[in-house]
């Protein structure tokens, strides 16, 4: 067992990048305004490994696909997830489909790092959590770390994976600290993390909703409700076995997800439970999500929208008492 120490979520991401770039000379970084990194710990990699790009998201995302097709493992820093819409064709039509369309000749080992900036008054065009769109785009893998250890481990796995991976980094967690293993600590895709075991209600949480869910579970334990908190960590592939196994034991499911409600990750997980564990359910499935409105600017408006400790706890109580 390697040593652990406390790192922030943001520090863990950099540690993963630096480790992977040191391990494999085919790993490069592409993104806007990353030239400053050459002054820091990335300096050793030299200018051919860091491509600080002009504001051409469609262009350099497409470039990453071409680089990945021909032997590199690019990490693309897409900074703000709302910018993904500018690069939808290279992501959805190219990265996600080229392996299939070429009959398996192509592999596209590219990583797209996408920041989630909700909750900071960035308003409607900078606050999106668009990962459900990419769950619905076959050929892309989708990872969302909620702890520093997972931020490092999922990124390491993403770089080593031979498929395109979109990794959504919740900037609300950037300064959260937690234990992170020294050295290599890849987290396998398709394995949920059971943060807390419980017997009354299964509470599946995604991104910063994990933090809220764990706080809610503490409150609920004091009320005598035992909550099992699970973070899927990757939405594609999805660890169906762990989610369904928990639902079969508790008979109750709440899903907390900061994405919009309609056709979201929470909807998919709820449907999975309804299809595969209907006989075990003892209450309707509850979703705690963000309503289908463009995210407002005013903190007075925005702060009410996302899954909160209180909102999640209320949903669990309703389901537990059903």
């Amino acid at each position, binding site marked *: 067992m390697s040593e652990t120490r406390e790192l922030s979520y943001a520090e863990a991401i950099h540690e993963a990048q630096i480790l992977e770039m040191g391990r494999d000379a*085919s790993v*490069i970084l592409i993104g806007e305004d990353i030239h400053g990194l050459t002054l820091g710990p990335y300096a050793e990699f030299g200018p*051919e*490994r860091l*491509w600080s*790009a*002009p504001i*051409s998201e*469609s*262009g*350099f*995302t*497409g*470039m*990453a*696909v*071409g*680089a*990945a*097709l*021909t*032997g*590199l493992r*690019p990490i693309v820093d897409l900074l703000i997830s709302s910018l993904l819409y500018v690069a939808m*064709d*290279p992501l959805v*039509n*190219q990265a996600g489909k*080229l*392996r*299939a*369309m*070429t*009959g*398996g*000749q*192509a*592999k596209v*080992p590219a990583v797209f790092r996408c920041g989630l900036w909700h909750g900071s008054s960035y308003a409607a065009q900078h606050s999106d959590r668009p990962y459900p769109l990419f769950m619905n785009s*076959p*050929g892309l*893998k989708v990872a969302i770390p909620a702890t520093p250890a997972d931020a490092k481990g999922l990124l390491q796995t993403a770089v080593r*994976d*031979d*498929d395109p991976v979109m990794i959504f980094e919740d900037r609300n967690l950037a300064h959260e600290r937690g234990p992170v293993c020294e050295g290599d600590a890849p987290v396998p*895709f*398709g394995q949920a993390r059971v943060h807390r075991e419980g017997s009354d209600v299964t509470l599946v949480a995604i991104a910063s909703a994990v933090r809220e869910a764990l706080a809610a579970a503490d409150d609920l334990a004091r009320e005598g409700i035992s909550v099992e908190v699970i973070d899927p960590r990757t939405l*594609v*592939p*999805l660890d169906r076995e762990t989610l369904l196994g928990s639902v079969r034991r508790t008979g109750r499911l709440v899903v907390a997800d900061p994405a919009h409600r309609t056709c979201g990750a929470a909807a998919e997980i709820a449907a999975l439970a309804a299809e595969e564990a209907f006989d075990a359910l003892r209450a309707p499935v509850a979703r705690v999500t963000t309503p289908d409105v463009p995210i407002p600017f005013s903190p007075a408006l925005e702060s009410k929208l996302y899954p909160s400790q209180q909102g999640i706890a209320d949903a669990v109580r309703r389901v537990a008492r059903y």
Partner: protein
Amino acid sequence: MPTPRPELLIEMQRRMWRVRAFDERAVELRHAREIHGPVHPSIGQEAACVGACMALREDDTLTGNHRSHGHPIAKGSELGPLMAELLGKATGVCGGMGGSMHLADFSVGSLGETGIVGAGIPIAVGAGLSARVRGTDQICIAFFGDGASNHGTFHESLNLAAIWKLPVLFFCENNGYAATTSLARATSVEDVAERAAGYRMPGVVVDGQDAVAVYEVTAEAAARARAGEGPSLLEAKTYRYLEHAEGEGIPGFYRDAAEIERWRQRDPLEIHRQLLLDRNLLDAAGADRIEREARAEVDAALAFARESAEPEPRAAFDVVFANSGGSGT
């Protein structure tokens, strides 16, 4: 200027005939509904794709577009797996997952074609960047039409390749029309190559019906790119004789028969045949034999395709991911 050797001049004619015979047969099969989905023939444009591809090295790469049967053929692909792909067979070069608009043959450096106009251009820039980072002197050529030169990806790609001096050739096969929309109606410049100036790279207009001329400008730009001197924008003025997509019922209102006939008078295969005869590289019988052999190769390719099995239903699920997980649910 690098001039092609005699055997290369003969091989050019062979490959142009392969492209034409392949596309003529593909059009017939489309009208007979033996090919499903759209077929975009390059008939009339053979000198552009063959002249350019033959100026490249075997390990150079290319990206194509929807009108792209000719690019892998020009780069040296076997015809059987290409024809089998058009017929959706298991032996197709993409296992029946791509079809006419999406041929890819990694064995000859064809990284794939895309039906999304302009989308292949940044992919080529990325392949150029990859060659540079990996320390090879490969180059990548992006083939696209005049229509794509109005797409944002074209402009972003030229800028990206220029600022980083990447080994990329931007090759515009300007056939005068984006589907039914003429260049004049849609484009701010008369020559697409003028746009190179905005990105401080060479912009070269070449007669796209003259395979040798195309070869020469491409070889020169390739040498420049390989030497680390950066990208070029090449524009071959060419023409497609047939419809944008055959068998789709696209009305021909947008151009007149006289215009098509004028271009047919400058047929690239005729022009190159005359060059071979003039230089005594072939006699008339030898030139005819090239055509016959190409048609026989296409017949053999079609026989192979027809005899091939349909893909297994599972095949669509097996190629989603390279590392397992998440497919087939």
